[in-house]
């Protein structure tokens, strides 16, 4: 390889990079111009849009939006802003109507394009704007999906937000469906459909769906499912039992405190920890002595939760003061001392 070879190679590479630089400059310029035009149109339409959303008889916006060059981008921005900052806006009939009228065709086109990022964005927007008109096409798409990749998972969420219960059946086709995806589906369905699906999941044998159903009950506070949750305390699957305990802790209610008793001696520390937490949050006085035993547990989290549990009782500070001096276990004494002054909790 000679000097001239390297000279030619360097010149070619430099020219290639310069060409690429030039292309990127032109592309940047175009993007800037597009951004500028879009910003102008957006600014121009903000007032008529706001007026239309508060009073749909003011149709200036409808005429204006039809006459702009960047209709899709501007409308997306306006609707996104409205949905993000207005409570309950994604159920707004006006958002649905505007998006279905102006965005159905462009979105159908984008979903058939190769650009993966734009397809994902579009699925999010369909969900945000609650575009039911696209549900049949999306369901067809899900039926044809071979893998549960990022796009298919978003497709499932979008369909669930459009209240398509068929997604739960479609999910059965895939192996190892993540628990969080089931939870996302339950969260997005309307209450009646969600409750029906929760019931089916609790009666079924799919552990991921059951786990998700218990988690959903926890944060939705659906007390009507309490008997089902309490039944799962006897499950042979540890993860299900722990989730059932978590759910009871979040519901802050259980029909029979005796159901908790076996968990104080569990060989799984997570179960002992949740038993202590539940005893505390529900102020089960009968377990005060048991909590003292757990204060000397070998696992830090169990000791932590046992001491925390005392803070829920009216005489908790007295008990903690006593235990900080007299508990037989040194770590138990330290933990009791900590909870006399410590305030728990993270930023929420």
């Amino acid at each position, binding site marked *: *390889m*000679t*000097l001239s070879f*390297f*000279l030619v*190679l*360097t010149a070619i*590479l*430099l020219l290639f*990079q310069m060409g*690429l*630089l030039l292309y*990127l*400059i032109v592309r*940047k*310029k175009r*993007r*800037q111009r597009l951004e500028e035009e879009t910003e102008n149109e957006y600014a121009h339409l903000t007032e008529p849009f706001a007026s239309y959303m508060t009073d749909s008889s003011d149709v200036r916006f409808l005429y204006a939006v039809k006459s702009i060059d960047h209709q899709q981008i501007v409308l997306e921005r306006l609707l*996104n802003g409205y949905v*993000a900052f207005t409570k309950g806006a994604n159920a707004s009939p006006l958002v649905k109507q505007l998006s279905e009228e102006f965005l159905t065709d462009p979105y159908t086109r984008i979903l058939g394009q190769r*650009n*993966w*990022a*734009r397809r*994902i*964005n579009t699925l*999010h*927007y369909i969900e*945000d704007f609650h575009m039911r008109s696209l549900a049949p096409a999306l369901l067809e798409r899900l039926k044809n999906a071979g893998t549960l990749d990022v796009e298919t998972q978003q497709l499932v*969420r979008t369909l669930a937000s459009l209240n398509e219960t068929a997604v739960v059946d479609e999910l059965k086709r895939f192996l190892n469906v*993540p*628990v*969080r995806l089931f*939870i*996302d589906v339950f969260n997005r369905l309307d209450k009646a459909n969600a409750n029906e699906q929760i019931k089916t999941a609790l009666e079924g044998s799919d552990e991921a769906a059951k786990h998700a159903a218990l*988690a959903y009950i926890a*944060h939705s506070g659906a007390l009507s499912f309490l008997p089902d949750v309490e039944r799962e305390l006897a499950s042979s699957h540890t993860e299900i039992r722990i989730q059932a305990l978590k759910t009871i802790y979040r519901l802050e209610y259980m029909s029979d405190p005796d159901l908790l008793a076996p968990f104080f001696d569990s060989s799984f520390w997570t179960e002992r920890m949740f038993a202590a937490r539940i005893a505390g949050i529900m102020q089960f006085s009968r377990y005060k002595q048991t909590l003292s035993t757990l204060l000397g547990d070998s696992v*830090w989290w169990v*000791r*932590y939760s046992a001491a925390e549990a005392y803070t829920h009782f009216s005489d908790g500070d007295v008990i903690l003061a006593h235990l900080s001096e007299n508990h037989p276990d040194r*770590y138990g004494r*330290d*933990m009791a*001392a*900590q909870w*006399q*002054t*410590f*305030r*728990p*909790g*993270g*930023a*929420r």
Partner: protein
Amino acid sequence: MQTFFLVFSYIIIAYMLFSSLSYILLFMIAFRKVYRESDLDPRETTEDIAGNERTFPVSILVPAYNEEVGVVSTVRSLLALEYPEKEIIVIDDGSKDQTSARMIEEFQMTEVAFAVRAYLETAEIKTIYQSSIFPYIRLIKKANGGKADALNAGINLASYPYFCAIDGDSILENDALLKTMKPIIESDGQIIVTGGSVRIANGSTISRSKVETINLPSHPVVLMQIIEYFRAFLIGRLALSRLNILLIVSGAFGVFHKERVIRAGGYNKKTVGEDMELVVRLHRLLREEKSKQRIEYIPDPVCWTEAPESLEVLRSQRVRWQRGLWETLWTHKKMIFNPAYGSVGLLSMPYFLLVELLGAVFELGGYFMIFGGFFFSLIDPKTAGVLFLVTIFYGSFISALAVLLEEMTLHKYPKISHLVRLYFWALTETFWYRPFMVVWRIQGIFAAFRKKHNWGDMKRKGIST
């Protein structure tokens, strides 16, 4: 003798061509992913987990040593982070200034009798404080033991299953934690570490943890560091992450699974490259356990840091980095070229040894032969010319390519003048910036043999208003 120099020159040419090709290969691996995701609407992708109860709570650890100037603003910026549940733990590693006093005063902190778990052995913990305004802000005052020791103390106090280690001088974007935790949440815990991109803040305007205006600094030394970060983060780390062989998660910002780190023994106090050493050790354990868990990097810029403007501070930083690299590779030398460690042993470790560590030695040899060839006839001028062109290719062209990759994908710098300035400065790299780096990196290798530890010294101006 001339034959020796000629052979030596050929070895350097071959080495530089090989290294350049490896960069181009990494570039190609990185390009597909960044390009594919470049048009994603960032708000939409994190919206789902922003108010979600199923995000894992995170403990944010801020090790601080003599940070009285910046510690309060750093903690204030962390308060602004959008994340469902977090706690902030500042670890004052025996500062000689008013670091603790500033925290206690600003956040009205009081002493608490905390029963700290001793998962990891650390220097003596003197006092633990808790804020009465924000109970989730805690301060550990401890005896000096170094950054790794401070982080280990933070891990002992952390309540949550994941911890995020950040440098005291870094500013995180409001959605940084959400973006960084997203892969962990979506993988159902299969990803145990995520590292975010670090960007240089000099020149940009950052206000209340939000980047208001992105701009370029005027100082050429800082400009070159921006280009270097593109090269390291966009080409190197992303491609290595794709192959699950990423060995570095920046100490400035990374999220770790706490139990995994405790099982690995925490941060190593015997090295100045504790961030890299921990990641290599985690890889080692994952391979030894035949685990499928992963360490991942996300390309989106989430953390802004202040880059040194003076050559002296930059020198000290680079010497530390190189020394840390050497110490890590030496500690885990058993893994290099060892098939038992899979692609980490066969690809990643050799890459870091041959390209990242020894690259400086070859480059120095290259500069020596170019001068020797042109001015002292050590080799014939044609070979010196070839060497010169290959050096430009290895240094400037690859860096310029990184600038173009950034523009093709993330295009975070808004003006055309930014792109042009960065590109042409990148082309000058071989002629002035790289020789400095080469010398300092070699000094770093020598420094590894002098076992003096310190926290590093950075004169801060502050990056957020």
